[in-house]
Protein backbone atom coordinates (compact mmCIF):
# COMPACT_ATOMS: atom_id res chain seq x y z
CA UNK A 1 0.00 0.00 0.00
CA UNK A 2 2.95 2.31 0.70
CA UNK A 3 3.73 2.26 -3.04
CA UNK A 4 0.22 3.54 -3.82
CA UNK A 5 0.80 6.46 -1.44
CA UNK A 6 4.17 7.18 -3.04
CA UNK A 7 2.39 7.38 -6.43
CA UNK A 8 -0.14 9.78 -4.88
CA UNK A 9 2.61 11.86 -3.32
CA UNK A 10 4.48 12.12 -6.64
CA UNK A 11 1.34 13.30 -8.43
CA UNK A 12 0.38 15.84 -5.79
CA UNK A 13 3.97 17.15 -5.60
CA UNK A 14 3.94 17.48 -9.39
CA UNK A 15 0.69 19.46 -9.13
CA UNK A 16 2.07 21.74 -6.43
CA UNK A 17 5.39 22.11 -8.27
CA UNK A 18 3.79 23.36 -11.49
CA UNK A 19 3.02 26.82 -10.17
CA UNK A 20 1.41 28.04 -13.39
CA UNK A 21 -0.94 25.07 -13.65
CA UNK A 22 -1.81 25.37 -9.98
CA UNK A 23 -2.46 29.09 -10.31
CA UNK A 24 -4.82 28.47 -13.23
CA UNK A 25 -6.46 25.63 -11.37
CA UNK A 26 -7.16 27.89 -8.41
CA UNK A 27 -7.83 31.14 -10.23
CA UNK A 28 -10.22 29.77 -12.84
CA UNK A 29 -12.96 28.76 -10.40
CA UNK A 30 -12.59 32.08 -8.58
CA UNK A 31 -12.77 34.08 -11.81
CA UNK A 32 -15.68 31.97 -13.09
CA UNK A 33 -17.50 32.52 -9.83
CA UNK A 34 -16.82 36.27 -9.96
CA UNK A 35 -18.12 36.45 -13.56
CA UNK A 36 -21.31 34.65 -12.63
CA UNK A 37 -21.71 36.80 -9.54
CA UNK A 38 -21.49 40.06 -11.49
CA UNK A 39 -23.36 38.81 -14.56
CA UNK A 40 -26.36 37.36 -12.76
CA UNK A 41 -26.15 38.48 -9.19
CA UNK A 42 -26.90 42.21 -9.33
CA UNK A 43 -30.28 43.79 -8.57
CA UNK A 44 -31.71 44.37 -12.01
CA UNK A 45 -34.99 45.87 -13.27
CA UNK A 46 -36.55 44.75 -16.50
CA UNK A 47 -35.80 46.95 -19.46
CA UNK A 48 -37.21 45.68 -22.68
CA UNK A 49 -38.12 46.69 -26.20
CA UNK A 50 -41.47 46.16 -27.85
CA UNK A 51 -40.98 45.62 -31.59
CA UNK A 52 -44.08 46.82 -33.38
CA UNK A 53 -45.25 46.44 -36.97
CA UNK A 54 -47.99 49.05 -37.22
CA UNK A 55 -50.03 48.57 -40.38
CA UNK A 56 -52.77 50.80 -39.02
CA UNK A 57 -50.69 53.96 -39.17
CA UNK A 58 -52.70 57.07 -38.23
CA UNK A 59 -55.55 54.92 -36.93
CA UNK A 60 -57.20 56.37 -33.83
CA UNK A 61 -57.02 53.24 -31.68
CA UNK A 62 -53.62 52.00 -32.80
CA UNK A 63 -52.26 55.47 -31.98
CA UNK A 64 -53.96 55.30 -28.59
CA UNK A 65 -52.47 51.86 -27.89
CA UNK A 66 -48.98 52.95 -28.92
CA UNK A 67 -49.18 56.11 -26.80
CA UNK A 68 -50.05 53.94 -23.83
CA UNK A 69 -47.12 51.62 -24.55
CA UNK A 70 -44.69 54.54 -24.88
CA UNK A 71 -45.81 55.81 -21.50
CA UNK A 72 -44.49 52.64 -19.84
CA UNK A 73 -41.11 53.54 -18.24
CA UNK A 74 -39.47 50.14 -18.58
CA UNK A 75 -40.41 49.70 -22.21
CA UNK A 76 -38.85 51.03 -25.38
CA UNK A 77 -41.03 50.95 -28.49
CA UNK A 78 -39.34 50.31 -31.80
CA UNK A 79 -41.24 50.36 -35.10
CA UNK A 80 -40.33 48.02 -37.94
CA UNK A 81 -41.68 47.47 -41.44
CA UNK A 82 -43.30 44.02 -41.81
CA UNK A 83 -40.61 42.66 -44.17
CA UNK A 84 -37.79 43.54 -41.78
CA UNK A 85 -39.64 42.16 -38.78
CA UNK A 86 -40.40 38.90 -40.63
CA UNK A 87 -36.76 38.53 -41.64
CA UNK A 88 -35.48 39.22 -38.15
CA UNK A 89 -37.88 36.66 -36.73
CA UNK A 90 -36.73 34.16 -39.36
CA UNK A 91 -33.09 34.80 -38.48
CA UNK A 92 -33.82 34.64 -34.73
CA UNK A 93 -32.55 38.22 -34.38
CA UNK A 94 -35.91 38.95 -32.73
CA UNK A 95 -37.96 36.54 -30.69
CA UNK A 96 -41.29 38.44 -30.45
CA UNK A 97 -42.98 41.11 -32.60
CA UNK A 98 -46.39 42.73 -32.13
CA UNK A 99 -48.36 43.19 -35.37
CA UNK A 100 -51.17 45.76 -35.46
CA UNK A 101 -53.34 44.91 -38.50
CA UNK A 102 -54.42 47.63 -40.95
CA UNK A 103 -58.12 47.33 -39.99
CA UNK A 104 -57.50 47.52 -36.25
CA UNK A 105 -58.98 51.02 -35.65
CA UNK A 106 -61.65 50.61 -38.28
CA UNK A 107 -63.04 47.48 -36.66
CA UNK A 108 -62.95 48.96 -33.18
CA UNK A 109 -64.73 52.11 -34.39
CA UNK A 110 -67.43 49.90 -35.89
CA UNK A 111 -67.75 48.07 -32.58
CA UNK A 112 -66.36 44.88 -34.06
CA UNK A 113 -63.82 42.46 -32.64
CA UNK A 114 -60.24 43.46 -33.46
CA UNK A 115 -57.10 41.41 -32.99
CA UNK A 116 -53.45 42.11 -32.23
CA UNK A 117 -50.98 39.46 -33.42
CA UNK A 118 -47.95 38.35 -31.37
CA UNK A 119 -45.50 36.53 -33.62
CA UNK A 120 -42.77 34.75 -31.72
CA UNK A 121 -40.02 32.20 -32.08
CA UNK A 122 -40.57 29.37 -29.61
CA UNK A 123 -41.92 30.88 -26.42
CA UNK A 124 -40.68 34.33 -27.38
CA UNK A 125 -37.90 34.36 -24.81
CA UNK A 126 -38.07 35.87 -21.35
CA UNK A 127 -38.07 39.46 -22.63
CA UNK A 128 -40.68 38.67 -25.29
CA UNK A 129 -42.98 37.13 -22.71
CA UNK A 130 -42.73 40.19 -20.46
CA UNK A 131 -43.31 42.59 -23.39
CA UNK A 132 -46.31 40.49 -24.50
CA UNK A 133 -47.83 40.68 -21.04
CA UNK A 134 -47.36 44.48 -20.97
CA UNK A 135 -49.01 44.87 -24.40
CA UNK A 136 -51.77 42.48 -23.36
CA UNK A 137 -52.43 44.58 -20.25
CA UNK A 138 -52.78 47.75 -22.33
CA UNK A 139 -55.13 45.94 -24.74
CA UNK A 140 -57.16 44.78 -21.73
CA UNK A 141 -57.54 48.41 -20.62
CA UNK A 142 -58.74 49.37 -24.06
CA UNK A 143 -61.20 46.48 -23.99
CA UNK A 144 -62.49 47.59 -20.65
CA UNK A 145 -62.91 51.14 -21.91
CA UNK A 146 -64.86 49.99 -24.95
CA UNK A 147 -67.18 47.79 -22.93
CA UNK A 148 -67.95 50.54 -20.41
CA UNK A 149 -68.44 53.11 -23.13
CA UNK A 150 -70.73 50.84 -25.10
CA UNK A 151 -72.85 50.06 -22.03
CA UNK A 152 -73.09 53.72 -20.95
CA UNK A 153 -73.96 54.78 -24.53
CA UNK A 154 -76.69 52.14 -24.59
CA UNK A 155 -78.18 53.31 -21.29
CA UNK A 156 -78.02 56.98 -22.25
CA UNK A 157 -79.30 56.44 -25.79
CA UNK A 158 -81.97 59.04 -26.56
CA UNK A 159 -80.99 61.22 -23.58
CA UNK A 160 -79.58 63.90 -25.87
CA UNK A 161 -76.11 63.75 -24.30
CA UNK A 162 -73.53 64.02 -27.08
CA UNK A 163 -71.45 60.88 -27.84
CA UNK A 164 -68.17 62.80 -27.39
CA UNK A 165 -69.20 63.82 -23.87
CA UNK A 166 -70.04 60.19 -23.00
CA UNK A 167 -66.60 59.09 -24.22
CA UNK A 168 -64.74 61.82 -22.32
CA UNK A 169 -66.67 61.18 -19.09
CA UNK A 170 -66.17 57.40 -19.40
CA UNK A 171 -62.42 57.83 -19.90
CA UNK A 172 -62.12 60.26 -16.98
CA UNK A 173 -63.99 57.91 -14.65
CA UNK A 174 -61.93 54.90 -15.76
CA UNK A 175 -58.71 56.88 -15.26
CA UNK A 176 -59.87 57.75 -11.75
CA UNK A 177 -60.64 54.08 -11.10
CA UNK A 178 -57.17 53.04 -12.31
CA UNK A 179 -55.55 55.67 -10.10
CA UNK A 180 -57.52 54.47 -7.07
CA UNK A 181 -58.55 50.89 -7.90
CA UNK A 182 -61.26 49.18 -5.91
CA UNK A 183 -59.13 46.02 -5.82
CA UNK A 184 -55.44 46.79 -5.58
CA UNK A 185 -52.31 44.66 -5.26
CA UNK A 186 -49.73 45.29 -2.56
CA UNK A 187 -46.19 43.98 -3.10
CA UNK A 188 -44.35 42.71 -0.06
CA UNK A 189 -40.63 41.80 -0.17
CA UNK A 190 -39.72 38.66 1.74
CA UNK A 191 -36.01 38.96 2.53
CA UNK A 192 -33.49 40.25 0.04
CA UNK A 193 -33.16 39.06 -3.56
CA UNK A 194 -31.60 35.57 -3.92
CA UNK A 195 -27.98 35.64 -2.65
CA UNK A 196 -25.81 35.03 -5.73
CA UNK A 197 -23.06 33.49 -3.62
CA UNK A 198 -25.39 30.83 -2.28
CA UNK A 199 -27.00 30.54 -5.71
CA UNK A 200 -23.88 30.01 -7.81
CA UNK A 201 -21.16 28.68 -5.51
CA UNK A 202 -22.50 25.09 -5.45
CA UNK A 203 -22.55 24.93 -9.26
CA UNK A 204 -19.07 26.40 -9.67
CA UNK A 205 -17.63 24.07 -7.04
CA UNK A 206 -19.25 21.05 -8.71
CA UNK A 207 -18.06 22.09 -12.15
CA UNK A 208 -14.43 22.40 -11.11
CA UNK A 209 -14.38 19.18 -9.13
CA UNK A 210 -15.67 17.54 -12.28
CA UNK A 211 -12.62 18.74 -14.17
CA UNK A 212 -10.72 16.16 -12.13
CA UNK A 213 -12.06 13.69 -14.70
CA UNK A 214 -9.93 15.24 -17.43
CA UNK A 215 -6.81 15.42 -15.28
CA UNK A 216 -7.11 11.83 -14.08
CA UNK A 217 -7.67 10.44 -17.56
CA UNK A 218 -4.83 12.50 -19.00
CA UNK A 219 -2.43 11.47 -16.22
CA UNK A 220 -2.71 7.72 -16.87
CA UNK A 221 -2.64 8.05 -20.66
CA UNK A 222 0.39 10.33 -20.42
CA UNK A 223 2.20 7.72 -18.33
CA UNK A 224 1.46 5.18 -21.02
CA UNK A 225 2.74 7.55 -23.73
CA UNK A 226 5.95 8.37 -21.85
CA UNK A 227 6.71 4.71 -21.20
CA UNK A 228 6.82 5.23 -17.44
CA UNK A 229 3.71 3.07 -17.07
CA UNK A 230 5.45 0.14 -18.74
CA UNK A 231 8.52 0.71 -16.58
CA UNK A 232 6.39 0.85 -13.42
CA UNK A 233 4.80 -2.45 -14.38
CA UNK A 234 8.22 -4.14 -14.26
CA UNK A 235 8.68 -3.09 -10.63
CA UNK A 236 6.88 -4.52 -7.63
CA UNK A 237 4.05 -2.06 -8.10
CA UNK A 238 0.80 -3.88 -8.86
CA UNK A 239 -1.81 -2.41 -11.20
CA UNK A 240 -4.18 -2.22 -8.23
CA UNK A 241 -1.66 -0.10 -6.31
CA UNK A 242 -1.07 2.08 -9.37
CA UNK A 243 -4.80 2.62 -9.76
CA UNK A 244 -5.34 3.39 -6.12
CA UNK A 245 -2.40 5.81 -6.11
CA UNK A 246 -3.68 7.66 -9.18
CA UNK A 247 -7.21 7.68 -7.81
CA UNK A 248 -6.06 9.11 -4.49
CA UNK A 249 -3.94 11.73 -6.25
CA UNK A 250 -6.81 12.91 -8.39
CA UNK A 251 -9.20 12.98 -5.45
CA UNK A 252 -6.67 14.92 -3.37
CA UNK A 253 -6.12 17.44 -6.16
CA UNK A 254 -9.87 18.04 -6.48
CA UNK A 255 -10.12 18.37 -2.71
CA UNK A 256 -7.22 20.85 -2.41
CA UNK A 257 -8.54 23.02 -5.23
CA UNK A 258 -12.09 23.05 -3.92
CA UNK A 259 -11.04 23.55 -0.32
CA UNK A 260 -9.38 26.82 -1.35
CA UNK A 261 -12.53 27.97 -3.19
CA UNK A 262 -14.73 27.04 -0.24
CA UNK A 263 -12.30 28.74 2.15
CA UNK A 264 -12.72 31.87 0.06
CA UNK A 265 -16.48 31.60 0.47
CA UNK A 266 -15.93 31.07 4.19
CA UNK A 267 -13.62 34.04 4.69
CA UNK A 268 -14.90 36.60 2.16
CA UNK A 269 -18.64 35.92 2.03
CA UNK A 270 -19.01 34.30 5.46
CA UNK A 271 -21.55 31.85 4.15
CA UNK A 272 -20.41 28.91 6.27
CA UNK A 273 -20.36 27.94 9.87
CA UNK A 274 -17.30 25.84 10.76
CA UNK A 275 -19.52 22.74 10.72
CA UNK A 276 -21.08 23.45 7.31
CA UNK A 277 -17.61 24.23 5.92
CA UNK A 278 -16.31 20.85 7.06
CA UNK A 279 -19.48 19.19 5.76
CA UNK A 280 -18.86 20.74 2.34
CA UNK A 281 -15.33 19.36 2.39
CA UNK A 282 -16.74 15.89 3.07
CA UNK A 283 -19.12 16.28 0.10
CA UNK A 284 -16.20 17.49 -2.04
CA UNK A 285 -14.13 14.48 -1.02
CA UNK A 286 -16.83 11.99 -2.01
CA UNK A 287 -17.70 13.86 -5.21
CA UNK A 288 -14.02 14.16 -6.22
CA UNK A 289 -13.64 10.42 -5.62
CA UNK A 290 -16.60 9.70 -7.93
CA UNK A 291 -15.25 12.08 -10.59
CA UNK A 292 -11.79 10.53 -10.34
CA UNK A 293 -13.22 7.04 -10.77
CA UNK A 294 -14.95 8.22 -13.95
CA UNK A 295 -11.61 9.62 -15.10
CA UNK A 296 -10.05 6.19 -14.51
CA UNK A 297 -12.72 4.57 -16.70
CA UNK A 298 -11.96 7.04 -19.49
CA UNK A 299 -8.23 6.36 -19.12
CA UNK A 300 -8.91 2.65 -19.46
CA UNK A 301 -10.81 2.99 -22.74
CA UNK A 302 -9.03 5.92 -24.45
CA UNK A 303 -5.95 5.18 -26.53
CA UNK A 304 -4.47 8.67 -26.88
CA UNK A 305 -4.31 11.78 -24.64
CA UNK A 306 -6.50 13.63 -27.15
CA UNK A 307 -9.16 10.93 -27.06
CA UNK A 308 -9.12 10.99 -23.27
CA UNK A 309 -9.38 14.78 -23.15
CA UNK A 310 -12.31 14.99 -25.57
CA UNK A 311 -14.24 12.20 -23.91
CA UNK A 312 -13.65 13.83 -20.53
CA UNK A 313 -14.66 17.29 -21.79
CA UNK A 314 -17.85 15.89 -23.32
CA UNK A 315 -18.82 14.05 -20.15
CA UNK A 316 -18.00 17.08 -18.00
CA UNK A 317 -20.07 19.46 -20.14
CA UNK A 318 -23.01 17.03 -20.38
CA UNK A 319 -23.00 16.53 -16.62
CA UNK A 320 -22.73 20.27 -15.93
CA UNK A 321 -25.66 21.00 -18.27
CA UNK A 322 -27.87 18.15 -17.11
CA UNK A 323 -26.99 18.39 -13.45
CA UNK A 324 -28.64 21.72 -12.75
CA UNK A 325 -25.48 23.82 -12.57
CA UNK A 326 -26.86 26.67 -14.67
CA UNK A 327 -30.56 25.81 -14.92
CA UNK A 328 -32.81 23.18 -13.46
CA UNK A 329 -34.38 20.90 -16.06
CA UNK A 330 -38.17 20.74 -15.75
CA UNK A 331 -39.53 17.55 -14.22
CA UNK A 332 -41.00 14.86 -16.51
CA UNK A 333 -38.69 15.87 -19.37
CA UNK A 334 -36.00 13.76 -21.00
CA UNK A 335 -33.37 16.18 -19.67
CA UNK A 336 -34.60 15.67 -16.14
CA UNK A 337 -34.37 11.89 -16.58
CA UNK A 338 -30.90 12.14 -18.11
CA UNK A 339 -29.91 14.45 -15.28
CA UNK A 340 -30.41 11.56 -12.85
CA UNK A 341 -27.29 10.01 -14.42
CA UNK A 342 -25.21 13.14 -13.87
CA UNK A 343 -22.92 13.29 -10.85
CA UNK A 344 -23.49 17.03 -10.59
CA UNK A 345 -27.20 16.48 -9.90
CA UNK A 346 -26.22 14.90 -6.59
CA UNK A 347 -23.25 17.13 -5.82
CA UNK A 348 -25.24 20.30 -6.59
CA UNK A 349 -28.11 19.08 -4.48
CA UNK A 350 -25.76 18.26 -1.60
CA UNK A 351 -23.86 21.56 -1.81
CA UNK A 352 -27.10 23.56 -2.08
CA UNK A 353 -28.50 21.80 0.94
CA UNK A 354 -25.40 22.85 2.86
CA UNK A 355 -24.76 26.31 1.44
CA UNK A 356 -28.21 27.65 0.60
CA UNK A 357 -30.38 25.78 3.07
CA UNK A 358 -28.04 25.36 6.01
CA UNK A 359 -28.56 21.59 6.12
CA UNK A 360 -26.40 18.93 7.71
CA UNK A 361 -24.61 15.85 6.37
CA UNK A 362 -27.54 13.76 7.53
CA UNK A 363 -29.74 15.61 5.03
CA UNK A 364 -27.55 14.61 2.08
CA UNK A 365 -27.05 10.94 2.92
CA UNK A 366 -28.69 9.78 -0.32
CA UNK A 367 -26.53 12.03 -2.47
CA UNK A 368 -23.35 10.98 -0.66
CA UNK A 369 -24.35 7.32 -0.95
CA UNK A 370 -24.88 7.59 -4.71
CA UNK A 371 -21.58 9.42 -5.26
CA UNK A 372 -19.67 6.92 -3.11
CA UNK A 373 -21.25 4.01 -4.99
CA UNK A 374 -20.18 5.59 -8.33
CA UNK A 375 -16.63 5.91 -6.98
CA UNK A 376 -16.42 2.26 -5.95
CA UNK A 377 -18.11 0.85 -9.07
CA UNK A 378 -16.09 3.17 -11.33
CA UNK A 379 -12.82 2.00 -9.80
CA UNK A 380 -13.78 -1.65 -10.23
CA UNK A 381 -14.88 -1.19 -13.86
CA UNK A 382 -11.77 0.78 -14.78
CA UNK A 383 -9.49 -1.79 -13.16
CA UNK A 384 -11.19 -4.60 -15.08
CA UNK A 385 -10.96 -2.81 -18.43
CA UNK A 386 -7.51 -1.22 -18.08
CA UNK A 387 -4.52 -2.64 -19.94
CA UNK A 388 -0.98 -1.33 -19.69
CA UNK A 389 -0.84 -1.85 -23.44
CA UNK A 390 -2.87 -3.87 -25.98
CA UNK A 391 -2.48 -7.54 -25.06
CA UNK A 392 -0.85 -6.57 -21.75
CA UNK A 393 -1.83 -7.17 -18.17
Amino acid at each position, binding site marked *: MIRAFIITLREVQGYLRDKAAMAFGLLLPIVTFALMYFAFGGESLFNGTAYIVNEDEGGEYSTLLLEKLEEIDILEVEYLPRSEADKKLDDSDLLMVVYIPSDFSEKLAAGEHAQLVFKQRGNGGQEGQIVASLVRAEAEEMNQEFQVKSQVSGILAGSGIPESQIITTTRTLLALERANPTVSVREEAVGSSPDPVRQFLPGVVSMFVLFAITLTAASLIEERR*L*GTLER*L*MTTRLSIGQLFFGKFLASTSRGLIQTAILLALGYIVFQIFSPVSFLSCLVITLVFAAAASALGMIIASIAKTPDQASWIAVFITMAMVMLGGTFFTPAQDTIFYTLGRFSLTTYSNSAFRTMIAEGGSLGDVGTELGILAAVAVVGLIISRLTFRVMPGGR
Partner: protein
Amino acid sequence: MAEQFLIAKELHKSFNEHKAVNGISFHIDKGEIFGLLGPNGAGKTTTIRMLATVLEPDQGDVIVGGFSIKNNAEAVRNLLGVCPQELALYEDMSAMENMVFFARMTGLNSNEAKAQAMSHLELMGLTERARGKVSKFSGGMKRRVNLAVALVGHPELLFLDEPTVGIDPQSRNNIYETIEGLRDKGMTILYTTHYMEEADRLCDRIAIMDGGQIIAIDTPRQLKSRIGDSEHVTLEDVFLNLTGRSLRD
Protein backbone atom coordinates in the same frame (compact mmCIF):
# COMPACT_ATOMS: atom_id res chain seq x y z
CA MET B 1 28.23 -25.87 -17.45
CA ALA B 2 26.88 -22.35 -16.77
CA GLU B 3 23.63 -21.95 -14.93
CA GLN B 4 20.76 -21.02 -17.26
CA PHE B 5 19.27 -17.95 -15.56
CA LEU B 6 16.53 -17.27 -18.12
CA ILE B 7 14.85 -19.97 -20.18
CA ALA B 8 12.27 -18.96 -22.82
CA LYS B 9 10.17 -21.86 -24.06
CA GLU B 10 8.10 -21.77 -27.25
CA LEU B 11 6.89 -18.19 -26.81
CA HIS B 12 4.01 -17.03 -29.00
CA LYS B 13 2.33 -13.64 -29.11
CA SER B 14 -0.18 -12.32 -31.65
CA PHE B 15 -1.93 -8.96 -31.98
CA ASN B 16 -5.17 -9.60 -33.84
CA GLU B 17 -4.05 -11.50 -36.94
CA HIS B 18 -0.41 -10.44 -36.72
CA LYS B 19 1.97 -12.97 -35.20
CA ALA B 20 4.55 -10.76 -33.51
CA VAL B 21 6.45 -13.62 -31.88
CA ASN B 22 6.13 -17.08 -33.34
CA GLY B 23 7.42 -19.86 -31.16
CA ILE B 24 10.85 -18.72 -29.98
CA SER B 25 12.99 -20.61 -27.48
CA PHE B 26 16.35 -19.61 -26.05
CA HIS B 27 18.21 -19.36 -22.78
CA ILE B 28 20.54 -16.85 -21.17
CA ASP B 29 23.33 -18.07 -18.92
CA LYS B 30 23.98 -16.42 -15.60
CA GLY B 31 26.50 -13.60 -15.97
CA GLU B 32 26.13 -13.53 -19.75
CA ILE B 33 25.38 -10.57 -22.02
CA PHE B 34 22.91 -11.92 -24.53
CA GLY B 35 22.19 -9.84 -27.62
CA LEU B 36 18.81 -9.86 -29.30
CA LEU B 37 19.12 -8.34 -32.77
CA GLY B 38 16.70 -7.95 -35.62
CA PRO B 39 15.27 -5.46 -38.09
CA ASN B 40 12.32 -3.24 -37.14
CA GLY B 41 9.21 -5.31 -36.52
CA ALA B 42 11.18 -8.51 -35.94
CA GLY B 43 9.52 -9.05 -32.54
CA LYS B 44 12.37 -8.00 -30.21
CA THR B 45 10.41 -5.49 -28.14
CA THR B 46 7.41 -7.84 -27.86
CA THR B 47 9.78 -10.56 -26.67
CA ILE B 48 11.33 -8.29 -24.05
CA ARG B 49 7.90 -7.19 -22.89
CA MET B 50 6.91 -10.82 -22.37
CA LEU B 51 10.15 -11.57 -20.53
CA ALA B 52 9.58 -8.48 -18.36
CA THR B 53 6.04 -9.68 -17.48
CA VAL B 54 4.38 -6.65 -19.10
CA LEU B 55 2.80 -8.74 -21.88
CA GLU B 56 1.32 -12.18 -21.31
CA PRO B 57 2.43 -14.79 -23.87
CA ASP B 58 -0.36 -16.51 -25.82
CA GLN B 59 1.60 -19.74 -25.49
CA GLY B 60 4.84 -20.81 -23.89
CA ASP B 61 6.54 -19.77 -20.67
CA VAL B 62 9.65 -18.08 -19.38
CA ILE B 63 11.56 -19.23 -16.33
CA VAL B 64 13.69 -16.58 -14.66
CA GLY B 65 15.86 -17.58 -11.68
CA GLY B 66 13.62 -20.63 -11.24
CA PHE B 67 10.34 -18.66 -11.29
CA SER B 68 7.74 -18.90 -14.06
CA ILE B 69 6.38 -15.63 -15.44
CA LYS B 70 2.99 -17.35 -15.72
CA ASN B 71 2.75 -18.60 -12.17
CA ASN B 72 5.00 -16.28 -10.22
CA ALA B 73 5.36 -13.02 -12.12
CA GLU B 74 5.91 -10.99 -8.96
CA ALA B 75 8.93 -13.11 -7.98
CA VAL B 76 10.28 -12.65 -11.51
CA ARG B 77 9.85 -8.88 -11.27
CA ASN B 78 11.89 -8.89 -8.07
CA LEU B 79 14.85 -10.13 -10.12
CA LEU B 80 14.46 -7.69 -13.02
CA GLY B 81 15.77 -4.30 -14.00
CA VAL B 82 14.42 -2.85 -17.25
CA CYS B 83 15.87 -0.03 -19.29
CA PRO B 84 13.21 0.59 -21.95
CA GLN B 85 13.82 2.00 -25.40
CA GLU B 86 11.86 5.16 -24.51
CA LEU B 87 13.23 7.62 -21.99
CA ALA B 88 10.78 6.46 -19.37
CA LEU B 89 11.45 9.24 -16.88
CA TYR B 90 9.42 11.98 -15.22
CA GLU B 91 10.76 15.16 -16.77
CA ASP B 92 9.31 17.41 -14.08
CA MET B 93 11.42 15.64 -11.47
CA SER B 94 15.16 15.73 -10.84
CA ALA B 95 17.42 12.77 -11.67
CA MET B 96 17.65 11.99 -7.96
CA GLU B 97 13.87 12.16 -7.49
CA ASN B 98 13.33 9.83 -10.45
CA MET B 99 15.85 7.38 -9.04
CA VAL B 100 14.36 7.44 -5.55
CA PHE B 101 10.81 7.15 -6.88
CA PHE B 102 11.53 4.06 -8.99
CA ALA B 103 13.70 2.62 -6.19
CA ARG B 104 10.73 2.89 -3.81
CA MET B 105 8.61 1.12 -6.42
CA THR B 106 11.06 -1.79 -6.36
CA GLY B 107 10.50 -2.09 -2.64
CA LEU B 108 13.47 -0.23 -1.17
CA ASN B 109 12.91 1.88 1.91
CA SER B 110 13.59 5.61 1.80
CA ASN B 111 17.18 5.45 3.07
CA GLU B 112 18.18 2.51 0.85
CA ALA B 113 16.54 4.22 -2.12
CA LYS B 114 18.49 7.43 -1.59
CA ALA B 115 21.78 5.59 -1.05
CA GLN B 116 21.37 3.47 -4.19
CA ALA B 117 20.18 6.45 -6.22
CA MET B 118 23.31 8.38 -5.33
CA SER B 119 25.65 5.47 -5.99
CA HIS B 120 24.12 4.67 -9.43
CA LEU B 121 24.10 8.32 -10.48
CA GLU B 122 27.77 8.43 -9.52
CA LEU B 123 28.37 5.32 -11.63
CA MET B 124 26.79 7.10 -14.60
CA GLY B 125 28.81 10.29 -13.99
CA LEU B 126 25.76 12.33 -12.96
CA THR B 127 26.53 13.18 -9.34
CA GLU B 128 26.81 16.89 -9.98
CA ARG B 129 23.52 17.03 -11.86
CA ALA B 130 21.64 14.78 -9.45
CA ARG B 131 19.38 17.64 -8.33
CA GLY B 132 18.83 18.97 -11.85
CA LYS B 133 15.48 18.56 -13.56
CA VAL B 134 15.52 15.81 -16.18
CA SER B 135 13.77 18.13 -18.64
CA LYS B 136 16.95 20.26 -18.69
CA PHE B 137 19.26 17.32 -19.44
CA SER B 138 20.88 16.53 -22.77
CA GLY B 139 19.86 13.35 -24.65
CA GLY B 140 22.97 11.54 -23.43
CA MET B 141 22.36 12.47 -19.80
CA LYS B 142 18.75 11.32 -20.03
CA ARG B 143 19.90 7.98 -21.48
CA ARG B 144 22.31 7.56 -18.58
CA VAL B 145 19.58 8.32 -16.03
CA ASN B 146 17.33 5.87 -17.90
CA LEU B 147 19.97 3.17 -17.42
CA ALA B 148 20.70 4.18 -13.83
CA VAL B 149 17.01 3.77 -12.93
CA ALA B 150 17.14 0.20 -14.25
CA LEU B 151 19.98 -0.59 -11.84
CA VAL B 152 18.20 0.34 -8.60
CA GLY B 153 17.42 -2.61 -6.39
CA HIS B 154 20.49 -4.46 -7.73
CA PRO B 155 18.60 -6.65 -10.19
CA GLU B 156 20.04 -10.02 -11.14
CA LEU B 157 18.77 -9.76 -14.71
CA LEU B 158 18.92 -6.54 -16.70
CA PHE B 159 17.00 -5.85 -19.92
CA LEU B 160 18.56 -3.10 -21.99
CA ASP B 161 16.41 -2.16 -25.00
CA GLU B 162 18.52 0.02 -27.30
CA PRO B 163 20.11 1.99 -24.44
CA THR B 164 22.47 4.02 -26.66
CA VAL B 165 20.06 5.41 -29.28
CA GLY B 166 20.78 8.98 -30.33
CA ILE B 167 23.57 9.91 -27.94
CA ASP B 168 27.09 11.29 -28.26
CA PRO B 169 30.19 9.01 -28.30
CA GLN B 170 31.18 10.02 -24.77
CA SER B 171 27.85 9.05 -23.26
CA ARG B 172 27.82 5.86 -25.35
CA ASN B 173 31.26 4.94 -24.11
CA ASN B 174 30.19 5.60 -20.52
CA ILE B 175 27.25 3.22 -21.01
CA TYR B 176 29.50 0.55 -22.58
CA GLU B 177 31.90 0.72 -19.65
CA THR B 178 29.04 0.55 -17.18
CA ILE B 179 27.59 -2.53 -18.89
CA GLU B 180 30.98 -4.25 -18.99
CA GLY B 181 31.45 -3.44 -15.32
CA LEU B 182 28.07 -4.98 -14.52
CA ARG B 183 28.99 -8.14 -16.42
CA ASP B 184 32.22 -8.34 -14.46
CA LYS B 185 30.14 -8.25 -11.28
CA GLY B 186 28.11 -11.24 -12.55
CA MET B 187 24.94 -9.51 -13.72
CA THR B 188 22.98 -11.25 -16.49
CA ILE B 189 22.02 -8.89 -19.32
CA LEU B 190 19.69 -9.06 -22.31
CA TYR B 191 20.72 -6.42 -24.81
CA THR B 192 19.02 -5.18 -27.96
CA THR B 193 20.52 -2.72 -30.40
CA HIS B 194 20.64 -1.74 -34.04
CA TYR B 195 24.37 -0.93 -33.76
CA MET B 196 26.16 -4.12 -34.83
CA GLU B 197 29.62 -3.07 -33.66
CA GLU B 198 28.11 -2.44 -30.23
CA ALA B 199 26.64 -5.96 -30.13
CA ASP B 200 29.96 -7.36 -31.33
CA ARG B 201 31.84 -5.57 -28.56
CA LEU B 202 29.48 -6.34 -25.68
CA CYS B 203 27.58 -9.56 -26.31
CA ASP B 204 28.75 -13.07 -25.41
CA ARG B 205 26.03 -14.63 -27.55
CA ILE B 206 23.57 -13.17 -30.03
CA ALA B 207 20.17 -14.23 -31.29
CA ILE B 208 18.99 -12.73 -34.58
CA MET B 209 15.23 -12.45 -34.95
CA ASP B 210 13.16 -11.86 -38.05
CA GLY B 211 9.44 -12.30 -38.66
CA GLY B 212 8.83 -13.21 -35.03
CA GLN B 213 11.29 -16.12 -35.11
CA ILE B 214 14.92 -16.65 -34.09
CA ILE B 215 16.80 -17.35 -37.30
CA ALA B 216 20.27 -17.66 -35.78
CA ILE B 217 21.78 -17.91 -32.33
CA ASP B 218 25.47 -18.17 -31.49
CA THR B 219 28.55 -16.26 -30.38
CA PRO B 220 29.50 -13.25 -32.55
CA ARG B 221 32.60 -15.08 -33.76
CA GLN B 222 30.64 -18.21 -34.75
CA LEU B 223 27.97 -16.15 -36.48
CA LYS B 224 30.61 -14.34 -38.54
CA SER B 225 32.40 -17.55 -39.42
CA ARG B 226 29.18 -18.82 -41.00
CA ILE B 227 29.66 -16.51 -43.95
CA GLY B 228 33.42 -16.15 -44.14
CA ASP B 229 36.59 -15.38 -42.26
CA SER B 230 35.50 -14.08 -38.87
CA GLU B 231 38.46 -11.69 -38.81
CA HIS B 232 37.21 -9.84 -41.88
CA VAL B 233 33.48 -10.35 -41.82
CA THR B 234 31.46 -7.94 -39.69
CA LEU B 235 28.37 -8.68 -37.68
CA GLU B 236 26.51 -6.30 -39.98
CA ASP B 237 27.42 -8.55 -42.93
CA VAL B 238 25.97 -11.50 -41.05
CA PHE B 239 22.87 -9.55 -40.15
CA LEU B 240 22.19 -8.43 -43.73
CA ASN B 241 22.99 -11.89 -45.02
CA LEU B 242 20.42 -13.46 -42.71
CA THR B 243 17.67 -10.85 -42.78
CA GLY B 244 18.09 -9.53 -46.35
CA ARG B 245 18.60 -6.03 -47.67
CA SER B 246 14.97 -5.04 -48.26
CA LEU B 247 13.72 -2.08 -46.24
CA ARG B 248 11.67 -2.74 -43.11
CA ASP B 249 9.14 -0.18 -41.90
